[in-house]
């Protein structure tokens, strides 16, 4: 007989199926994902890393206004979407560009926000990916609503809702978990604990034993995983998604990872942390260890590597080309999207601007 505490509290240590040296660790509760999933995941990690690096370069070239990178967190990014089915939803934050692209959203459309063309560039209904949320934790309650609507419609949709460690401190995190639990909404709350909220380290954010320990206060099972181990993440998130889909209600997963780079290009991490803190995390890189494991297992061949690199090259080129084109959004759009029917006030204001621009151009 398991007590309610045993059912709801996380494992004593973050679940890890492949360690940083590429060695396999068996776990009684979580089986090793299928080989082809890992090989596919490997390719996605390589592509994800390239997206991060290319986007960084594009910021330096002035093609993107800002880019919050998930460099080092790619295993979380990729796992979050790999475990989803087509009808499922993803609720990403500003840092989850890789996740969105790995979900199949057009990369250039994804970067519309960070390029400064518009607030969001893709159609959320096309791949069931909500707009990236900037106000922290606020998207988590939306995720509950989307999941609850699916349940009301009799669908077996699951919603994957992402947030960072810092965001767990916001009131909306609390309200979302509680609402999801009370309504048994099929949401997997997935916290990427990268140890920092801009400059603020986790210890200033919470003194809880872990972020996964927050689940029990809502009656939500919490689990934690090594955030740089794709295999462990696929197993833990996969099981969470299965449970949510099976009607067991929301699940909370904390991935322990690390923000290897600064918060964004605009941030200067040297003001609040030492490089020595970063170094060991470079050793724990998610790609390196998966490569080691798969190679050791004889599952990863040069052909796979070449294929992954080619895919990465292609997306990097696509990003470069796509962002080199200067898109100028039409100022008339400023007034077009607020309401289904434009108000008389907005009509007046749109006409005013149009006239002003016409006179400027004359």
């Amino acid at each position, binding site marked *: 007989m398991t007590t309610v505490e045993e059912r709801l509290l996380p494992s004593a240590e973050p679940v890890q199926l492949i360690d940083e040296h590429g060695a396999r660790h068996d776990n009684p509760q979580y089986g090793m994902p299928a080989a082809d999933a890992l090989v596919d995941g490997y390719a996605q990690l390589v592509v994800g890393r390239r997206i991060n690096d290319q986007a960084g370069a594009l910021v330096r070239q002035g093609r993107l206004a800002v880019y919050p990178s998930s460099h080092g967190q790619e295993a979380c990014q990729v796992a979050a979407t790999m475990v989803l089915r087509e009808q499922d939803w993803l609720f990403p934050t500003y840092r989850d560009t890789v996740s969105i692209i790995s979900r199949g959203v057009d990369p250039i459309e994804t970067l519309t926000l960070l390029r400064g063309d*518009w*607030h*969001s560039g893709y*159609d*959320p*209904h096309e791949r069931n990916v*909500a*707009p990236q949320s900037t*106000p922290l934790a*606020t998207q*988590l*309650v*939306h*995720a*509950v*609503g*989307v*999941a*609850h*609507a*699916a349940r*009301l*419609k009799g669908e077996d949709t699951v919603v994957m809702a992402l947030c960072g460690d810092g965001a767990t401190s916001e*009131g*909306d995190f*609390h*309200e*979302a978990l*509680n*609402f999801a639990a*009370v309504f048994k909404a099929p949401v997997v709350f997935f916290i990427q604990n990268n140890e920092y909220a801009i400059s603020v380290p986790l210890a200033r954010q919470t003194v809880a034993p872990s972020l996964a320990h927050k689940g029990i206060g809502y009656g939500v099972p919490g689990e934690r995983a090594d955030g740089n181990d794709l295999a462990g993440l696929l197993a833990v998130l996969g099981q969470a998604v299965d449970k949510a889909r099976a009607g067991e209600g929301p699940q909370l997963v904390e991935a322990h990872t690390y923000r290897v780079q600064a918060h964004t290009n605009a941030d200067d991490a040297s003001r609040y942390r030492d490089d020595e803190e970063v170094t060991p995390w470079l050793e724990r890189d998610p790609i390196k260890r998966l490569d080691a494991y798969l190679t050791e297992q004889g599952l990863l061949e040069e052909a796979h590597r070449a294929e992954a690199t080619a895919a990465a090259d292609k997306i990097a080129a696509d990003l470069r080309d796509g962002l080199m084109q200067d898109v100028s959004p039409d100022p008339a*759009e400023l007034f*077009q*999207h*607020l*309401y*289904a*029917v434009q*108000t*008389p*006030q907005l009509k007046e204001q749109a006409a005013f601007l149009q006239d002003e621009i016409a006179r400027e151009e004359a």
Partner: protein
Amino acid sequence: MTHQKLTMAQALNHALRDAMRADDTVLMFGEDVGALGGVFRITDGLTAEFGEDRCFDTPLAESGIVGMAVGLAMNGMRPVVEMQFDAFGYPAFEQVVSHVAKMRNRTRGKVTLPMVIRMPYAGGIGGVEHHCDSSESYYAHTPGLTVVAPATVADAYTLLRKAIEFPDPVIFMEPKKLYWAKEEVDLTTEQPGIGKAVVRREGRDATLIAYGPSVPIALEAADAAAAEGRQLQVVDLRSIVPFDDEKVCAAVRSTGRAVVVAEASGFASVSSEIVARVTERCFHSLAAPIRRVTGFDIPYPPPKLERHQLPGVDRILDAVDDLQWEDS
């Protein structure tokens, strides 16, 4: 269409019921709206008729309520939520301003949020602190919201039906002191819609511009003025956003004088906007500056002092007297 004598509370209840019958994606939820039927009984009987899935209580968290409505609306539902009192809408302010108001614009119309946030608002019921706020100005100032306030029983029905059918989010301000006002009405949606003001009383001498709980007071003031030989026109805005510039300006031009009546504190408010925009548009038709009769710039008073905060007939008539009848 039924001809009945109803309170505004009942008319709102009918509107919800009829909307839920007409469209089974319409959901009603919030605090105490289920078995209890809402602290003002606006949702009375809805859970019984439509079941727990259609009308339900939530945990006690306004940001969660509004945020969940956003998600439901994103995924095919038409949620209607109740903030128990309008001051308890503030914890949801972030959701309202950053998401409810902006989602459509953010996604270039790809994600629409057909949802209604109902708020019992304003005072006159002897409520203790936090139970009588008038927060319409916060919402009216927020681009992307539609803000509506009925003043009659008939409009309560019409406007709530139209708000629920509206393709975009509507902040629906219910003047709580009028919940028990009774009228003989037809429940119909064949009335002017959102965005349309109506002239509730004709008059050639000056125009009173009011909305929500101030409309009956304005009409009373007009009655009193008539007894003294002055014919006051009364315009009921009904919709604060969009604003019916055409109707309001035509009314003011026809009299050359105007008083705005609103219960909310005046500073940086909807009433400021009315004065500003009407003056901008009708300056040369005005014989006197437009006056405001509003709440003072103070927190809503305790019950024993609230009458001083509420625009009353005498205060309106004083303002009308102030419209420089001699020198103009």
